[in-house]
């Protein structure tokens, strides 16, 4: 209940703040709403860092917001922009909405899913709910990533059924679409082309499949797009940069990878100078004081971004000695002691691209070929789809020809977007960890360019453009919906995996362990969240932490064989051990009693790859 009240309070805060604005009211409200959801927790985190008192609860966050309420009541109100008469959306947006509505419905029959989601995003949420602490609770490096997504899911899990929370990432598509539509407007695209671009973006497999998992990608990218909008918006520079910085900070809190986007958008902020709004057209020579205005823009943007996203870096700097933990900082890292985490194997980065391509040059044709080593061509981290393949050459040609024809000044907004897109893609290439989803933030910034290119076509050629793109969108929405339908039919309709235990395929006893139960997970990391149980009350010791406790070399892979030692397990308060195929032995100071076992698929009776066994631990020595 407190979660719903908290969300209402955030909504009220957003409405109050946004009423000072005219045309940008909706976007400001969106940015402030998520800021109000997340930033009070950051303040509570800073309080914990400085005092050691764990206080990161929804109630305390709500109290902080309430404390700010008197300030909000004094805020002036601007007249709302003229309301436009309701206009016909067209069939494509309706179809897109129907597809995502159906996907949400199917999702609500299951539980949250996704490898990284169950391995660390949701475990961080559960840890926050259990301990009211925002500190990284063990040395497992994925637990030290910025965790705005986990914060949001924790607030929701606190008050909503897990099934509903499973659909929550779809809601983050709303700020993403609003931002892209607004960017399309700034790029002088017409309404129909803007809607086509938004629908096409949602149909991109990496977006669609990310949205049905509770990861951090969609949120981060949505706030990158919003930040870019505010930088280019017609608002006064200081207001625009503050809002852009807020969004950039929120994006960094979802994924520190967006430091790259922050640099790109920061450059655009500097380029904007002192004029109100970035509109296309002629511009005079550099004015006196312009440099000062540009530096001011950069300072406000960077300062707001640090305030809104700096908590996670501050925490990692104070607790782990490196603000960018687990990644080492190039050049100055050695001097400042900001080195990679011991269990973070950066040498693997160079080979991650082999999941998609055999040679680096094949990325040039990836949008048309979409190879994936294991046949998982369309998932949260694979696949750009027909729409992107169709969009790239047409947009590049139209923009290139128009810039050559009209000169750069006439295309300033579009070139700013193109510059940011190229910067993100080039940095992705240079950093070497070439996973397609790491470049995804460039896509919403490229969509306005496509929408503008479509707007330039007229008559028969416009129909060709519209029809071709619509075909691509329908095909990719079909891919997404059919994949969801197959999964739903398989797991929910045929296998009837409706209970939590059957959905995640663990022994049902996990859901009824006594209060204070602590399970040592010796199976794959993705078992971490399921093992928290239906009430999210079990404490789970992560597999990498288990490896450390038992003196095994650090790795994110589950051990094949383990000798359990009573002393470290007893010290950690472990009451149960969970294993799935790991051979276990133990010292004489403990005894393992098999409490529950699942070795066959409950629906089909087929044997599982490795028996999932829950052992109760008895300690025999003092």
């Amino acid at each position, binding site marked *: 209940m407190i979660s719903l009240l908290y969300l209402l309070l955030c909504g009220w805060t957003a409405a109050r703040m946004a009423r000072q604005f005219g045309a940008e009211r909706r976007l400001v409200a969106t940015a402030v709403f998520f800021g109000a959801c997340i930033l009070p927790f950051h303040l509570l985190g800073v309080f914990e860092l400085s005092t050691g008192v764990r206080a990161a609860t929804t109630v305390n966050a709500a109290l902080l917001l309430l404390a700010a309420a008197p300030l909000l009541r004094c805020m002036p109100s601007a007249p709302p922009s003229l309301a436009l008469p309701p206009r016909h959306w067209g069939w494509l947006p309706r179809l897109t909405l129907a597809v995502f509505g159906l996907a949400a419905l199917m999702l609500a029959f299951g539980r949250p899913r996704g490898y990284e989601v169950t391995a660390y995003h949701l475990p961080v949420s559960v840890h926050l709910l259990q301990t009211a602490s925002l500190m990284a609770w063990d040395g497992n490096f994925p637990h030290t990533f910025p965790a705005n997504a986990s914060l949001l899911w924790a607030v929701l899990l606190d008050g909503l059924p897990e099934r509903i929370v499973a659909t929550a990432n779809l809601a983050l598509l709303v700020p993403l679409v609003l931002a892209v539509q607004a960017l399309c407007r700034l790029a002088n695209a017409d309404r129909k082309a803007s809607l086509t671009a938004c629908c096409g973006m949602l149909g991109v497999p990496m977006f669609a499949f990310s949205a049905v998992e509770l990861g951090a990608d969609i949120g981060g990218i949505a706030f990158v797009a919003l930040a870019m909008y505010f930088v280019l918006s017609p608002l006064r520079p200081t207001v625009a940069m503050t809002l852009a910085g807020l969004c950039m900070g929120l994006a960094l809190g979802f994924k520190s990878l967006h430091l790259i986007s922050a640099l790109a958008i920061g450059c655009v902020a500097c380029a904007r100078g002192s004029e109100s709004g970035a509109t296309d057209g002629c511009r005079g020579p550099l004015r006196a004081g312009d440099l000062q205005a540009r530096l001011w823009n950069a300072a406000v943007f960077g300062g707001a971004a640090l305030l809104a996203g700096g908590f996670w870096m501050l925490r990692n700097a104070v607790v782990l000695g490196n603000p960018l933990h687990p990644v080492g900082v190039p050049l100055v890292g050695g001097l400042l002691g900001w080195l990679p985490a011991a269990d973070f194997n950066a040498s693997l980065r160079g080979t991650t691209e082999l999941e998609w391509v055999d040679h680096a040059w094949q990325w040039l044709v990836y949008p048309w070929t979409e190879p994936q080593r294991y046949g998982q061509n369309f998932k949260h981290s694979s696949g750009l789809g027909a729409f992107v393949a169709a969009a790239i050459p047409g947009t590049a040609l*139209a923009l290139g020809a128009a810039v050559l024809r009209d000169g750069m000044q006439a295309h300033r907004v579009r070139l700013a977007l193109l510059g940011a897109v190229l910067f993100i893609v080039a940095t992705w290439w240079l950093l070497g960890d070439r996973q397609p989803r790491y470049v995804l933030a460039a896509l919403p910034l490229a969509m306005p360019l496509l929408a503008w290119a479509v707007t330039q076509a007229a008559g028969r050629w416009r129909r060709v453009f519209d029809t071709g793109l619509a075909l691509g969108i329908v095909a990719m929405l079909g891919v997404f919906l059919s994949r969801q339908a197959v999964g739903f039919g398989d797991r929910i309709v045929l296998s009837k995996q409706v209970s939590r235990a059957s959905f995640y395929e663990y022994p049902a006893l996990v859901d009824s362990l006594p209060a204070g139960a602590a399970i040592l997970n010796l199976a794959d990391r993705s078992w971490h969240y399921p093992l928290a149980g239906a009430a999210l009350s079990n404490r789970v010791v992560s597999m990498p932490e288990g490896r450390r406790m038992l003196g095994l070399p650090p790795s994110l892979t589950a051990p094949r064989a383990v000798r359990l030692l009573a002393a470290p397990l007893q010290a950690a308060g472990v009451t149960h051990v969970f294993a799935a195929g790991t051979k276990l032995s133990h010292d004489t100071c403990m005894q393992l009693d098999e409490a529950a076992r699942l070795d066959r698929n409950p629906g089909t009776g087929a044997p599982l790859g490795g028996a999932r066994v829950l052992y109760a631990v008895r300690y025999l020595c003092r």
Partner: protein
Amino acid sequence: MSHIPAALVSKVPAGLSACSMAVYFCCSEGIRNHLAMLWQAVQAVAGHLR
């Protein structure tokens, strides 16, 4: 630079886009594997109903 033909901005991109999509549907492993997965699913459902 007014010698750039207007068609390069207003006409050719639409055609290029259509061609690019055709190339995609011919070359995409993703589409091929997805159709294969759907066919397997249809066969599995048919087997289940029999």
